[in-house]
């Protein structure tokens, strides 16, 4: 069996602190994971679609991991962590893009639903927090607000359109 080694850089809940993680796959299911040099033996087993049993040096955890790109939403015992895990290349790319595109905000749907009303037009100036449109899901109205002041560059949706979580709704720049 080939041994896999990887190094990742991770942040938690969009925090400042960056953790360096080194992983070695020792045998089937068993990994050695070091976080900033502190090493643990980890037995990792899948229980169901997103459900995992993880044993770290004898501690047993029942964890739900939802993967969305490089962001892992980790739910354990009522605690929720959003962990971004990047390898060196992705980390470099991210540093570059976040420098370059700061002024341009792509607004994505945070939940699936139906666009009930669109309140702005392309070219319109908006303030930070100004509602752009109203999305209805499960009998509740949700205002989609401008994350910053700027001009509405693009609108990707129309009223009565159904959207999935993650669909692009608008661009404010």
């Amino acid at each position, binding site marked *: 069996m080939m041994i896999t080694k990887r190094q990742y850089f*991770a942040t938690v809940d969009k925090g400042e602190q960056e953790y360096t*993680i080194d992983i070695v796959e020792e045998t089937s299911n068993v*990994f050695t994971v070091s976080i900033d040099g502190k090493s643990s033996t*980890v037995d990792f087993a899948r229980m169901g679609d997103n459900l995992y049993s993880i044993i770290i040096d004898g501690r047993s955890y029942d964890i*739900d991991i939802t*993967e969305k790109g490089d962001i892992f939403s980790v739910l354990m015992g009522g605690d929720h962590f959003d962990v971004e895990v990047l390898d060196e290349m992705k980390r470099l790319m991210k540093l570059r893009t976040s420098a370059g595109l700061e002024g341009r905000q792509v607004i994505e749907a945070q939940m699936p639903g139906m666009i009930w009303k669109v309140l702005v037009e392309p070219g319109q100036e908006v303030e930070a927090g100004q509602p752009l449109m109203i999305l209805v899901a499960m009998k509740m109205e949700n205002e989609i607000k401008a994350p910053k002041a700027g001009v509405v560059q693009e609108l990707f949706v129309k009223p009565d359109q159904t959207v999935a979580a993650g669909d692009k709704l608008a661009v404010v720049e």
Partner: protein
Amino acid sequence: MPDIIKKILVANRGEIAIRVFRTCRRLGIKTVAIYTHADRTAPHVRYADEAYCISDTETDTSYLKADKIIEIAKKAGAAIHPGYGFYSENPTFVQRLEEEDIIFIGPSAEHIKLMGSKTGARNAMVEAGVPVVPGTKNAIRDVDDAKKTAREVGYPIMLKAVHGGGGKGMRLVNSEEDFDSAFRMASSEAANAFGNGDMYIEKFIVGPHHVEIQILGDKHGNALHLFERECSIQRRHQKVIEEAPSPFINDETRAKMYEVAVKAVKAIGYHSAGTLEFIVGSDQNFYFLEMNTRLQVEHPITEMITGVDIVTEMIRVAEGKTLTYKQEEIFRNGFAIECRIYAEDPSNNFAPSPGLITVYETPGGPNVRVESGAFAGYEVPLYYDPMIAKVCSFGKTREGAIIAMKRILTEYKVSGIKTSIPFHQRVLKNETFLAGNYDTSFIDTKFDMEDLQRKEQKDPSVALIAAAIKQLISEKISAQRSVTRRDVGESNWKRFGRLTSLGNRLG
């Protein structure tokens, strides 16, 4: 002669349809489900003996199809139970059933209508000797008269706009010296907002609790209460946790509330299950708010502390039988708590989270009751209420019920969508909640969002480890994908096993 009900159509969906079907299955009554196109795979459809689609088109998601429902019920020879919501408090629908000679498992159209009108309900209750929130209800014409009323009602009072709503044109007045200025400002605000400056006076309830009395009545003039439920834990005016009995009211208040509730039910001749909602102040004074003329979401906790099956009683009453129990045969045993599980993401401001449930493990062991409308493989639709289940715990003491619920929630696993389970877990750790000393402002004032964000486990190491390994496995699977292609058609679970071992073993 009582009509024997042999078949019941539940004009509802999800957990409450299943709840009613459970009693039917126990009693040997056949069941009929209705469903929309979007709900074809909802669990109430396969639970029933018969199931009929009521959608006109593939995109029609409405359950408000009186004509179709009546046609199905007639053809199937079924009585109708409305559940809650939808047609449950619609007098026109009930009236039509009466005309069509279909048994409605609920109160009469008149009672629904009476209690559906705020003024009608208030007047009926005042007549029956039930206390209501003191005040005038009429527009203030003379300020001195109004002050006299305010003195009688007792400060603090609220000045409210007769034509108001949405919190505007309201002013809290703590003492008489503030009355004049408050009245001027509120009246002018109301005039601006609603084009009318008329104001009325209502007593302001300090530290308000939402306490409700479950009642049952039959068509023979019998009525009884099944104790109370405390429903003060609300978020955006939605109940989220209920408990029975109330940890707040004292036995004297309890006894008084039971008495007036039963008296009122008898006075108006109400039959079937119903609930009188009261606002109770920190001084233990209680005032009628409204009466719900239906089975409530939170009825299971009452069933758990009394052993009474409320749906069975509703069916009996609809058949014209007397209630199974007399008041003196009803005993309260222990404490029960209900958590409403919503398909909402508590870590993202409770955004709705419909979608495919991939893992669904319900809690087991003692002292638990789950009323669920979901299962693994079920896609929670966009179109309906986000409540997917109710989970209830029981204990000999309140503390016992709380620690049971904590244990129970750790066993409830839902993947694929987000649920409010972590929110409930936080509430169950909040000191004000544990002390049983909360009012309706709890979520806003005592349980702040910090409670929700706070982590049991401050160290993120385990999460970091889990995420990093998952990333490694995902990378391997994509690498694998680029070199291999697999056949379609193998069992879903076989494939799942293979992917798992692929993830675990490939190196």
